[in-house]
C-alpha cells in the first residue's frame, strides 16, 4: 500500500535451489501521486511464477516493474507484471529482461489494464529476451486491456541470440569465450542492474559469471 505522495521501492533477488517451486503474489495499491517500484530478479528454482502488480487507484499514481529472469537448465522462469490503471493520469512502466541458457525457458506474462475511469493514462512495456543456445527458449504473452480511448500505450519486444560474431570480437581481445559470454549477458541486464544497490548488483553479476563457467561450446 503506497499512501498519497509516498514512494516505495521493493527489491528482491532470488536464487532458489532447483527443486523449489516459487509462486509469489506481490500486489501494491498506489494512491494519489504515489510511486511504487518493484525491482525483481529471479535466478534459480524449478519454476517461478511471479507477476508483481500495481493497482493505480489515486490520480497521477505511478507504478514500475523492472524484472530480470535468468533460466539456466531445466528451469522455467515465468515472470511479468500487472498494471491496473484505475484513476486518471496514472502512468506505468514495465521493463523485463530475460536470459535463457542450457535448455532454460523464460516467459513474459504481462497485463496492462486501463479502466474507463483512468483517463489520460500512459503505459509503457519493454521486454527483451536473450537466448544463449538452440536448446533454450523464450516467449511472451502480453495482454493489453484498454477501455479508455485517451490512453497511450507503448509496447516493445526484442529477442536476440548470443551471436558468434560478438563472442569472436571479444575473444579476439584475449579473453575466454565464457568470459565474453558473461560480459554480453551482464551488459544485457545492465540497465536494470544499475538500479540495484551495489551489493545486489555485484552478487548478481557473480552468479551469472559462475553459471557461465564451462557453458559455452
Amino acid at each position: 500500500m503506497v499512501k498519497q505522495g509516498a514512494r516505495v521501492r521493493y527489491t528482491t533477488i532470488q536464487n532458489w535451489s532447483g527443486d523449489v517451486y516459487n509462486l509469489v503474489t506481490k500486489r501494491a495499491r498506489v494512491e494519489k501521486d504515489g510511486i511504487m517500484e518493484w525491482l525483481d530478479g529471479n535466478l534459480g528454482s524449478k519454476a517461478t511464477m511471479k507477476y508483481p502488480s500495481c493497482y493505480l487507484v489515486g490520480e497521477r499514481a505511478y507504478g514500475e516493474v523492472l524484472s530480470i529472469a535468468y533460466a539456466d537448465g531445466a528451469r522455467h522462469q515465468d515472470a511479468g507484471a500487472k498494471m491496473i490503471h484505475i484513476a486518471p493520469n496514472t502512468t506505468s512502466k514495465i521493463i523485463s529482461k530475460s536470459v535463457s541458457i542450457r535448455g532454460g525457458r523464460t516467459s513474459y506474462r504481462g497485463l496492462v489494464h486501463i479502466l474507463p475511469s483512468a483517463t489520460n493514462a500512459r503505459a509503457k512495456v519493454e521486454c527483451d529476451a536473450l537466448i544463449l543456445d538452440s536448446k533454450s527458449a523464450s516467449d511472451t504473452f502480453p495482454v493489453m486491456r484498454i477501455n479508455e480511448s485517451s490512453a497511450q500505450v507503448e509496447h516493445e519486444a526484442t529477442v536476440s541470440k548470443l551471436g558468434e560474431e560478438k563472442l569472436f570480437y571479444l575473444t579476439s581481445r584475449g579473453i575466454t569465450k565464457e568470459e565474453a559470454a558473461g560480459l554480453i549477458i551482464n551488459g544485457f541486464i545492465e540497465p536494470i542492474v544499475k538500479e540495484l544497490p551495489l551489493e545486489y548488483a555485484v552478487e548478481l553479476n557473480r552468479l551469472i559469471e559462475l553459471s557461465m563457467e564451462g557453458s559455452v561450446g
Partner: protein
Amino acid sequence: MLKKASIILAPMLEITNLSVKSEDKLILSSVNLKVESGTVHALMGPNGSGKSTLAQTLAGSPAFTVTAGSIVFKGEDLLIKSPEQRANLGIFLSFQHPLEIPGLNVASFLRMIYNRRVGQNTLPVKFKPILEEKMTLAHMAPEFAQRYLNDGFSGGEKKRMEILQMLVLEPDLVILDEVDSGLDVDALKDIAKAVMYLKEKKPQTAILLITHYARILNLIKPDLVHIMQKGAITTSGDSSLVHTIETSGFNNGK
C-alpha cells in the same frame, strides 16, 4: 650464434598455401605471405577479393574454415589456437565492422584485456592514468571511458575505439582492416599518428594494413604492397605499386 641468427631471420608471420572457405564457398586459395617483424605491409584489392577473410582467419574467426595450408606466427602453429590464445600471442585485428556490446563499460573492458595482456591484475586506480594517456593518443574524449563498448558510436568513433584497444594491448602484429574507410582527413591523421606512435615505441611491431586508398599509405608508409584478387595474392612489390594502382586500377597492377 648461428641458431640465434636464424631465429631473428625467421619471419614473424608466415602464411603458406592458405585456402579458406565459409560454409561451402571457397574464398581464399593458396595465399602466401611473409611478414617480418618491424615491417609494414599493405594489402589492397577490389571489394570482395577476400582481404577481410584473410584478416579474420588470422584472428581465428569461427565463420571460416581453413581447408589447406598453414599459418605460423612467432614459430607457433596458429591454426590450432583459439582467438584468445592468438591475441595473447600478440595478434590484434582492428575490425572492418566493430561490434556493439550494449551494457559493457569501456573502461572496465579495457582494464580486463590489459590485465590479460600484461599477465597481472592492475587495479582500477592504477589503470585510470594508463587509460587516460592512451585515450589522449587516440584523440578520444574522456567521456568515452564510461560509455558502453561501441554502443551507438558513429563509424569514425568505432574506428578510434579499435585504435584505443590496439594502444592498450600493444600487440606485436597489428592487422588494420579498412581502418581508414569513412574517415575525414583529421580523423585519418589521428589514427595514423597513433599507429606510428606504437611503431616508434615498439619498433619490432609489424603492421598489415588493408585499404582501398593511397592516402593512408602516405601517412603509414608500407615496405611492401600486395594486391589480392579473387582470393589470391596476384602481385607484390614495393610502395611504387600503390601509384600504379592509383593511376591504372587493380587489373593493370601487374
